[in-house]
């Protein structure tokens, strides 16, 4: 046994170094954008020779960028509300009941996770083009809800799995009606799943490019669609500033639910 100790230790070392390298590969490209966005030169450079906020100023003073951001917030909020309402309700039905067609319905709800965005975008575009929903925020909300719905269902279902239904029966046997039971017993217990699902739905819409490329038209350009148009032409450093803000938003959204969970348990 003793003889295989040194090679094993070397093996573990190689494993740790290799894993570290993969982690660096994953995180560095994202982090490197942040200092570059504060550069003062006319093009992106790393490391920046001196710092400035010029690209942030450009973003906040360009009406087209701000308009696109506004559209994105509007669409993402709409998607979040619609997907959370439909998805939470559906998760209840899927987790708590066995019924004919349940597996088929589950496949239908989850399939947008895996069917390529381009197929969904084309299909919805072909229909929406006929009913004047191209170039409207409403069209984008409806399409993004298809993509966001499985995220809500998965998150809410995960909290419902570990849910003890007898607390609901206890509330009801003490005289609470179904609505009061949901409001005061069920909802507080599954809130982490609903909050996480809602945040995922928001981000899924806010970052979505492919559907937006088809459905934005000229009148409902979202932020990712405008970034896409810009990136296709040139590497505009303004994109680095916007990217930095999007990365920080992603960090916040990742950390927020855990903070909320901490609060509800304390």
């Amino acid at each position: 046994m003793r003889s295989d100790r040194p090679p094993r230790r070397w093996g573990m070392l190689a494993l740790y170094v290799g894993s570290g390298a993969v982690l660096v590969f994953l995180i560095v490209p994202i982090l490197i954008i942040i200092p570059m966005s504060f550069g003062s030169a006319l093009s992106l450079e790393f490391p920046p020779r001196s710092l400035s906020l010029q690209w942030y100023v450009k973003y906040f003073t360009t009406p087209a960028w701000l308009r696109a951001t506004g559209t994105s917030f509007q669409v993402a909020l709409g998607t979040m509300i619609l997907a959370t309402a439909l998805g939470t309700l559906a998760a209840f039905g899927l987790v708590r009941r066995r019924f004919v067609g349940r597996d088929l319905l589950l496949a239908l709800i989850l399939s947008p996770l895996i069917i390529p965005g381009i197929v969904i975008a084309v299909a919805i575009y072909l229909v929406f083009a006929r009913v004047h929903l191209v170039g409207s925020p409403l069209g984008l909300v409806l399409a993004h809800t298809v993509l966001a719905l499985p995220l809500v269902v998965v998150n809410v279902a995960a909290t419902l799995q570990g849910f003890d239904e007898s607390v609901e029966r206890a509330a009801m046997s003490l005289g609470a009606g179904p609505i009061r039971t949901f409001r005061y017993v069920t909802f507080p217990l599954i809130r982490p799943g609903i909050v996480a699902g809602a945040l995922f739905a928001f981000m899924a819409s806010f970052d979505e490019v492919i559907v937006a490329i088809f459905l934005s038209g000229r009148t409902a350009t979202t932020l990712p669609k405008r970034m896409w148009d810009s990136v296709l032409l040139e590497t505009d450093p303004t994109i680095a500033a916007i990217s930095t803000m999007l990365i920080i938003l992603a960090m916040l959204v990742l950390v927020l639910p855990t903070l909320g969970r901490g609060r509800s348990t304390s």
Partner: protein
Amino acid sequence: MRAALRPWAAVAPATLFLLVVFAIPIVMVLALSFSGPQVGVQHYARIVTTPVYSRVFANTLQIALGVTLVSLVLAYPLAYVLSILGTRTSIVLLGLVILPWFTSLLVRSFAWMVLLGQNGVINRALLSMGVIGRPLPLLYSAFGVYVGMVHILLPYMVLALYSVMRGIDRDLLRAAQSAGAPPWRAFLHVYLPLSLPGVAAGSLLVFVMASGFYVTPALLGGPRQTMIAQLITSEINEAVNWEFGAALATVLLLVTLAGLAVFNRFLGMDRFLGRRA
């Protein structure tokens, strides 16, 4: 809740919504792909008989397969290390996997444009160190597409492997070794087979997602790395040939559904709801 919520009442709104905004449009794409000047399989015949199109399909499958293999090789050791570390360390390190996964795909592809370009971070660094005499063609190449796509899909593979590896009882490895198996044999005959469900789930997921990629190959690849999704977009938006675009989309959809069917057959959709099938 029991009495108040009939099963169909709870799932009806989502079902109705998905039928109207998702399922029916997909069926309309299928129908459209068989129409055009005349009803029939003409568009499919054109895909099969035109070398340009079959090459794009071959490209797509080749890139998707390559990206899956590279992701698997990179993710396996990382997921293993994450699964054996203490809870606190592994949560922090998992954060480093999840943050990129949660960051916009467009932002990540843009980051790679900045890193890989002619005047990009990597070329400038290598030039200033004197490693190379002139910039390497990293961007708009197969290399760019592979790096970008692996970067974007790797977290899925890591998470799929990690969720299975965390449940593997490592005492089995110790038992195999105390019975005389050298570590590599214990790994090959005990650990690897137990981790295969994660390998299958991760690989299938990454392969299926990779075959539908649009943004990353469009930004990081050259004309020779054109993938199906780019072809579909140009047929619909530029050539305005909806029927042919619909046929291309149908073929891509079939590839995806085949993957989904395999997944469901071996692993079960219930996995997504947090239950072991």
